[in-house]
């Protein structure tokens, strides 16, 4: 697949001539490849201030579809050398004000980038956050493993990635030991800088290892970073704000290179840019810190050069002071020649197939009608299609029959049942989570009515977050019969609706993410007014917000009912992540503001579509579905954006979203992967079979056998005859060893289903009551099939259609007919066959 570098260079020298060929390495197209196009990244920049610089990358698109970093093989030149100069690595530095063009040449191909230089005579103002923060971040001093950890290291605490530069500054210039639960410094406050003898500053002596340092040498003596810190101390160690008024404050960072695809041994330079408050960008490629999430797939150098290690896919996390970003990097297994043209049904396919093509992964063939009808029925309704419907569907010649079936399913009662079950799981509907069965019952009704009415998802979120009074949604504020703490209530809403886990930030700044403890408690404070009232001695709880707090008439309120910042000990006012307190309003609950923030946030739609995607494909575009974080980026970020935009445009309509996904070609790919792609689970090149969740599996067993399950509640009640497991309003009052064995969650916390095979399941399959009773049950499917004296082949066919939604293959049918005839009794033989079908992987999985 790959020729040696020397040979490649030789070939290229003959074909086009390379100027900077010496000592370079990296990817090159195969001998028979041709470069189709060339581009420079970025295409247009503005260099501001003295000695401003920008790293450029030359990217070449070749016939194999890959885009390779050929910067070092390109001829780079500028048309105005007096304004900027460029070095072979692609680094451009400003000299004086003016405009210039950077040109890259490779053979006959050229690419250009525009450069404008302004304020070349002015130095960029110093900023502690930016300049010292960069050193601390780049050198890893403030990483979670070092002083940026929850408790810091050796008494010295820095905020993770310079999230809180003012606090960092204080710990450096004032000294003192950090305490997690208090803002007070521990021990004697001795500055970590020495203004009289700057070189003797602890801040320099420790990382240069002039004195013992647990982290070893991190800052070589005399390095540029060393000089930066030293000069700062010499200049008086002033803080100097980020100068937002001058428009130079950093508002975010961006990885310009986007998704990177490498072939084995390939390399690419990442480009990272800081977005400034004045709308411009500034190159921070050299000053950022790079971390590979999986060094076994790709490595990354301290300057951002990514190198393929082995086939796979991972992400590179980039940190700059106060910000974090990530990008996905894939290393392809091998190039696919004659990559097939896959027909896209909608934009989902465009995104999926585009990535598959880039990664040289072959999509599977479209799924068969048999596979589709079973898959879509299970995914939209949690129900197996009955044999007569399977026959109808398979016999239907209409090319639009799949879409028509989707419409039928989305309008069915079974759809309402199933998605009620899904949302009830997510929203934790149950007796314990609401304090009592009656509460769980009306909470479940609220969920069901919402699904039946196809209530927009943002409306559902707002209703749940702001729930008051005695309605169903308000019951979730009575966890175990008690109004939850503000921090717990908030963290649950954020996890459910934004897909983020903020819990860590409750006790300290999030160790890996940019969520601060202040932000956490500011958000938690939106729930601090939530309280309840009754009107009889054992009356029902009415949930409401008391503007004066839960206990205004009781002197000092109990801490459990207030949002108290654990470090400052102060009561926190409701504030959104920008930190600005939201004005209290006597008439309305502050939760309305929180709900508006949640549902208007771009994260909301992304989290919603990702969760739904996860239900349908067994894994989210971000997986786990409620663990969005910079170090866990989406597998298809643009698809996630498109789905989110689509959802928003369609009024947060769940049915529309489901229809969009299940009518895509991607969803309708076969579950059989092309050879070599069996373990590729994250690119949706084939439909990855997923085990049926406990309730779906039990319902499927019931459907195939035709013997209903009985659900007796722990308090002596009984669900109506024919109730399916997905219809149970409160699973926690219906004990079921089968459901527990297959991973039914208790809903006491946000459910995470883990359907891991177990020995118990295997034993239950062999001798468990669920199977044995249903196979022996009266009035079931088998009894009905055998009674009229149908031919064995017909019965086998019917059982196959019921369990697998397909006809038995010829060889299966022949072998089974023989086996049935050899059985001691026809009844027993067919019971054994039914058991075998139920015990098969084909039955227990949606594929």
């Amino acid at each position, binding site marked *: 697949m790959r020729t040696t570098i020397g040979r490649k260079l030789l070939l290229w020298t003959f074909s086009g001539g390379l100027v900077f060929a010496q000592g370079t390495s990296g990817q090159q197209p195969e001998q028979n490849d041709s470069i189709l196009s060339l581009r420079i990244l970025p295409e247009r920049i503005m260099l501001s201030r003295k000695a401003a610089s920008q790293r450029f990358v030359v990217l070449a698109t070749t016939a194999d579809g890959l885009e390779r970093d050929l910067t070092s093989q390109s001829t780079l030149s500028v048309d105005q050398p007096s304004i900027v100069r460029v070095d072979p690595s692609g680094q451009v530095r400003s000299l004086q004000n003016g405009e210039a063009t950077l040109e890259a040449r490779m053979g006959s191909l050229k690419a250009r980038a525009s450069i404008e230089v302004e304020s070349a005579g002015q130095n960029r103002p110093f900023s502690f956050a930016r300049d010292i923060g960069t050193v601390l971040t780049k050198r890893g001093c403030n990483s979670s493993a070092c002083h940026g950890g929850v408790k810091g290291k050796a008494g010295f605490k820095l905020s993770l990635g310079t999230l809180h530069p003012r606090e960092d500054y204080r710990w450096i210039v004032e000294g003192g030991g950090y305490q997690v639960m208090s803002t007070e410094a521990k021990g004697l406050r001795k500055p970590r800088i020495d203004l009289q003898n700057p070189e003797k500053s602890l801040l320099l002596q420790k990382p240069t290892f002039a004195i013992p340092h647990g982290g070893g040498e991190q800052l070589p003596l005399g390095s540029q970073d060393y000089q930066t810190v030293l000069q700062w101390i010499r200049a008086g160690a002033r803080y100097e704000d980020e100068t937002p008024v001058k428009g130079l404050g950093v508002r975010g960072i961006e990885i310009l290179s986007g998704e990177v695809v490498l072939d084995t041994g390939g390399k690419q330079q990442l480009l990272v840019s800081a977005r400034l408050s004045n709308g411009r960008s500034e190159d921070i490629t050299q000053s950022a810190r790079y971390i590979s999430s999986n060094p076994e797939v790709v490595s990354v150098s301290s300057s951002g050069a990514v190198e393929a290690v082995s086939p796979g896919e991972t992400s590179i996390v980039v940190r700059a002071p106060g910000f974090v970003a990530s990008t996905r990097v894939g290393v392809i297994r091998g190039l696919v020649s004659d990559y097939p043209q896959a027909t896209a049904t909608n934009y989902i396919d465009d995104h999926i197939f585009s990535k598959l093509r880039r990664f040289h992964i072959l999509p599977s063939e479209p799924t068969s009608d048999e596979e589709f009808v079973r898959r879509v029925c299970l995914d939209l309704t949690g129900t197996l299609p009955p044999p007569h419907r399977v026959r109808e569907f398979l016999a239907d010649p209409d090319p639009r029959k799949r879409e028509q079936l989707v419409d039928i399913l989305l309008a069915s*009662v079974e759809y309402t049942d199933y998605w009620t079950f899904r949302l009830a799981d997510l929203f934790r509907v149950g007796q314990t989570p609401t304090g009592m069965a009656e509460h769980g019952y009306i909470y479940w009704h609220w969920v069901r009515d919402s699904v039946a009415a196809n209530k927009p998802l943002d409306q559902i979120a707002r209703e749940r977050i702001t729930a008051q009074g005695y309605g169903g949604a308000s019951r979730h504020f009575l966890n175990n019969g008690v109004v939850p703490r503000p921090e717990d209530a908030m963290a649950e809403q954020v996890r459910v609706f934004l897909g983020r886990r903020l819990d860590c930030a409750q006790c300290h700044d999030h160790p890996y993410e940019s969520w601060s403890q202040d932000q956490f408690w500011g958000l938690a404070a939106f729930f601090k007014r939530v309280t309840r009232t009754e009107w009889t001695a054992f009356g029902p709880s009415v949930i409401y917000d008391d503007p004066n707090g839960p206990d205004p008439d009781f002197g000092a309120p*109990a801490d459990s009912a207030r949002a108290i910042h654990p470090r400052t000990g102060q009561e926190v006012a409701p504030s959104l992540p920008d930190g600005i307190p939201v004005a209290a309003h006597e008439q309305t609950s502050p939760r309305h503001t929180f709900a508006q923030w949640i549902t208007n946030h771009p994260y909301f739609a992304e989290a919603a579509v990702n969760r739904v995607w996860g239900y349908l494909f067994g894994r989210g575009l971000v997986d786990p579905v409620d663990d969005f974080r910079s170090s866990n980026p989406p597998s298809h970020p643009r698809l996630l954006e498109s789905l989110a935009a689509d959802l928003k445009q369609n009024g947060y309509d769940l049915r529309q979203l489901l229809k969009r996904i299940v009518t895509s070609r991607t969803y309708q790919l076969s579950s059989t992967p092309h050879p070599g792609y069996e373990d590729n689970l994250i690119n949706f090149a084939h439909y990855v079979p997923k085990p049926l969740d406990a309730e779906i599996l039990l319902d499927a067993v019931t459907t195939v056998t035709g013997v209903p399950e009985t659900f007796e509640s722990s308090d002596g009640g009984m669900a109506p005859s024919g109730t399916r497991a997905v219809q149970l309003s409160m699973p926690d009052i219906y004990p079921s060893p089968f459901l527990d064995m297959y991973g039914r969650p208790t809903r006491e916390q946000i459910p995470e289903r883990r359907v891991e095979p177990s020995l118990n399941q295997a034993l239950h399959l062999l001798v468990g009551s669920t199977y044995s009773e249903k196979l022996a049950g009266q009035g079931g499917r088998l009894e009905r099939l055998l009674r009229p004296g149908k031919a064995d082949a017909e019965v086998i066919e019917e059982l196959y259609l019921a369990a697998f939604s397909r006809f038995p293959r010829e060889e299966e049918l022949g072998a089974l007919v023989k086996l049935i005839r050899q059985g001691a009794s026809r009844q027993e033989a067919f019971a054994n066959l039914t058991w075998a079908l139920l015990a098969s992987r084909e039955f227990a999985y949606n594929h």
Partner: protein
Amino acid sequence: MRSRPHLARSGLILFLLAGSVLAAPKPEPAPLDPQLTTLSPLGATKGAPAQIQVRGKRLQDVHTVWFECHDLSARIQGITQIEETEQEKGDKYYRKKARALLGQDREELEFQVTLKLETSEETRQGLHHFRLVSPQGLSNSLSVQIVGLAVKTEIETPHVRPSQAQILEPPTIINGSVSQKGELDYYSFEVEAGKTLSFQVLSGFELGVNYWAQTEVRIYEPHQSWFGTEQAKPLILEGPKLSWEPITMRSPWFDRRDFLAHFVLYPGLQHRFEKAGRYLVSVGAFLGRAANHDYQLRITPVDASSRHSVDAFAQPAHSDPTDWLERDASTLRQLGSFRRRLGEGRLDQLRARSVDTQPPEEQKETALFRSISEKEPNRLPVEIREISIPGLAEGRIDLPGDIDHFKIQTTPGQALAFEIETPHLSPPHFSPWLKVLNAEGKVIVQNIFREYGGNGIDPNRYLERKTIHTFQEGGEYTVLIRDATDTASGEAYAYRLLVRPQIPHVGRMDVSLGVFSVSSQLIEMTDRLNMRPGETQKLTLVADLEEGFSGELSVQVENLPPGLRVYASTPASWSHLLVQGIQYRPPGVELMDPSTHRPRRQAVTLLLETNSEVEPTSLPRFLEVTARPMVSGELGPTLSAGRIPLMILVPEQNLTTKTAPKDKVALEK
């Protein structure tokens, strides 16, 4: 059949109430008196003959049906011993628990008594209480509902699936029974487009079975499932689905009547049908918790004008003479009702429960009663209307988050009471929240009372219908009223706020056989007295002394049979628990003064003693317990405190208990 006792003799006791209560209930010897558990069906049409089956224990010797009114009567047609079904055997867990608490060591036999009910066109509609009488005593009471509509009976054939639904033609009432746990009975009906129907259900409760068994009603449209399953499509219903209604029920733990409120599925279910057609309604026990669960379902059309009016379905046919304002006659709520009528007459009602010691001048002043109506906007000082004292403000929460503002002028030391009525929707669906603010905007008083309950962490907050406060400083105060939530509004969220001078008076009085010490609640170990010669029985009278009533009460027990005497006891040591309840105070937290929201309570124990020569009675008579307020030696009006049916029985050793044959018997009486 009913026999009303005449005032044969009365015993008079004058006693200074200071509190006396019984200790926690102790296991008692196995009772002999008849005990009723269920009846089926739950009601009948007036004027039409009906047969009713009553089930219970120790019924083999019952001979008379005793109603508390003259409107109707019943005859016993037969008594049968009941074979326990498999389902009932499964319920033994609860029965065992109940037996263990009652100190019973064996399951008793159950009997079914067939009654022939006789009513006339003059029989009042509503619930009629009845009991059965045997030589072992008087039973507890059950209620049969008499209605005007022709009552239909559930068909014999199964109708537990939508396709089997029994056809109904509203308006209609149907008597039915959920025979199996988890069973749903389906009915179908036609309705025109735009019609609103009301679905109301009355259900029975059975001693020893899950006490929270309730009846669930759901409405569906027929649906043809693509999957071939028979599943109707539930309609999305507006309005509350769950409510909190008082239920006269029997606890599994104690053989007593219990008026505590419990969750029920919202009894006033209404739905407007936008599309004409055939629909389905199902009836089942809530969460399938009960079998042999009788119900009566009424489906009636609703006019837009009467949408919020209180309906008479499943309400008592006759008012309880001991009822006082704190019990809502229309909903049977015993505590915290917000539906009692407020107005000018309220002041006279209260004065009638006290001794009139007010100087004539003050009476004149309080007679200047005025009503005002709230108008939006009312936030600016010039917009705020003043409520005169006494006076009534009528208003409505027009928009979500609406806070209505009023003002009052007080004089220094003025003691005022603020009472709220919610004529349509009551808590928990409408929770009127009152605050009174001084000139600085500080909340002086509000109608939420907080106390620390069981865990000592999470305080209970009670929304109170009445709040009293003495204004130390005179001047202008702002009165705010809103719903506790910022989401509720509309016609149904109407309120009436009465501001009046405090009127010290005697409030609710309860006569019981004791107080449950754990929760300091009144309990009734029985709702009747069956006494034998030479026995004693204690009664506890607890009185609420409202708004600073500081006088005394004279207590009288009337209609005593010859040979029965009544004594008054000294107060029990822990009766103070009745006043404040048990609060678990977290460190550093001050308890709220309950006097703003709660009456002062006092208790007295009465001891009844029969002598050995007392004559047995063949039928019950009511012991009438009355009380008269007494201030400065002056007696006020006679107030009814309680009526307890009493029977004097023949000595136990003279009894012979029959055991009914297992086969059906025709035991004509």
